[in-house]
């Protein structure tokens, strides 16, 4: 299990500015992120010999072969890993396997999305499946908030979650977004602002929901040995774990025995920790996929940072704040306030933190960071260290 531990490092990161709706086409945005990541790594485009991405959104926007052509590189390794969140966060597992087995030396992972420009945006996911169109849409079940709202109500009833606790999550994220300086949302939010934000699907408010963003991110991975020769401090991949529950995306939002929490997140985290050879107590900060305040809370507990039902208090007591908290969470403001990059920006932020490049949002003594990549029925946990 520990054979991949610390074998590769992230040596370059690149991202575009994040906006609600870009005037540029997505291929342009992806190439900008990729070019920046390679420059950051001090590696030329033709040296790339491995290309990976998550498998649902990215290849449709910028196929790996087109990317290779744009870089002028010859791919010796080409793969997608899972889809969206778990794909973005767990992709380095594939890079570690490719690099340690000698298939490739320079692996590039990238992500981009243009839902700000697309009709229906992320909600159109619900129209991919005939089951959803026939059995769910006629009843108004269209758009992720409709599903998470019912989940939030169920969790709140079971554990006594208050609106103020959820609001504390939203307010913390907004504060972090303001500190990082590059976020899509920079308007200060108080708990009163949160409580006054409109109900979308009661009990879920607009400020419980993540952004819609156009933009792209990329990162470059090489062996730990080679990483020492790169200009920036390496960020080592300590461990990666992926796991899933036996449901499809069509049914996973409404069926499933546990209607609170995610067993796949618990198992993925156990495996990542085992590969890394560390315990959760040694993690200094966490970037966890926050599509909604409730889904963040459930993952936070499923990962093991708080007992079930106690996560709300953790946030309410300021423990997740980068300003004096014991375990800062989503130090960039996450999907909620920074940008909705489906976990890719969470990876980039973790790297920034471990390099000490986060400025006003810097976690002090950042040694080990955890990144959690969520989808309704599968999960990736990534452990990085400096």
């Amino acid at each position, binding site marked *: 299990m520990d054979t991949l531990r610390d074998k590769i490092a992230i040596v370059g990161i690149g991202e575009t500015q994040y906006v609600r709706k870009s005037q540029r086409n997505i291929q342009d945005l992806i190439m900008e992120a990729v070019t920046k990541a390679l420059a950051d790594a001090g590696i030329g485009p033709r040296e790339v010999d491995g290309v990976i991405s998550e498998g649902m959104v990215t290849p449709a926007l910028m196929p790996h072969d087109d990317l290779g052509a744009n870089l002028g590189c010859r791919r010796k390794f080409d793969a997608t890993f899972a889809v969206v969140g778990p794909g973005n966060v767990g992709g380095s597992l594939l890079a570690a396997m490719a690099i340690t087995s000698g298939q490739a030396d320079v692996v590039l992972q990238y992500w981009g999305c243009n839902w700000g420009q697309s009709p229906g945006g992320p*909600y159109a996911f619900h129209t991919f499946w005939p089951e959803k169109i026939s*059995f*769910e*849409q*006629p*009843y*108004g*079940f*269209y*758009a992720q*908030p*409709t599903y998470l*709202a*019912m*989940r939030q*109500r*169920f969790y709140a*009833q079971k554990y006594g979650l208050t609106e103020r606790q959820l609001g504390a999550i939203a307010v913390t994220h907004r504060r972090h977004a303001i500190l990082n300086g590059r976020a899509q949302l920079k308007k200060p939010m108080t708990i009163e602002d949160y409580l006054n934000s*409109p*109900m*979308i*699907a*009661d*009990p*879920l408010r607009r400020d419980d929901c993540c952004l819609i963003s156009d933009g792209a991110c990329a990162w470059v991975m090489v062996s730990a040995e080679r990483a020492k020769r790169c200009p920036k401090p390496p960020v080592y991949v300590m461990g990666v774990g992926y796991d899933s529950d036996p449901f499809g995306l069509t049914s996973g939002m*409404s*069926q499933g*025995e546990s*209607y609170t929490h995610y067993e796949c997140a618990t198992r993925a985290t156990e495996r990542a920790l085992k590969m890394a050879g560390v315990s959760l107590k040694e993690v200094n900060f966490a970037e966890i996929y926050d599509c909604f305040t409730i889904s963040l809370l459930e993952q936070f507990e499923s990962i093991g940072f708080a007992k079930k039902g106690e996560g709300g208090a953790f946030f309410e007591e300021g423990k997740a704040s980068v300003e004096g908290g014991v375990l800062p969470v989503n130090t960039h403001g996450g999907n909620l306030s920074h940008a909705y990059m489906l976990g890719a920006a969470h990876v980039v932020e973790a790297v920034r933190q471990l390099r000490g490049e986060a400025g006003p949002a810097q976690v002090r003594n950042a040694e080990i960071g955890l990144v959690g990549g969520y989808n309704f029925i599968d999960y990736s946990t990534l452990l990085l260290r400096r």
Partner: protein
Amino acid sequence: MSGRGKVFSWAILRHAFIPEFKERLPMILGLLEFDDAPGLRLVNNIIECDPKDVYFGMPVEVVFHRINEEVTLPLFKPIRK
């Protein structure tokens, strides 16, 4: 199936993600469970009910709503004694 179920959870839709639904707001979105189909949950609407009257475990029964010649939608309403 008997057509009788219970409310497992619910939400009150107040934002028209689908513009054509605007006149139907607020809509009660329900996740329903059934004694005679354990393990299954059905996504549906609860009609003939005030949003503030819904509760966990509220008993509901199916009502077939004929939209047009081709389409009939099963909907659920509270069982009132």
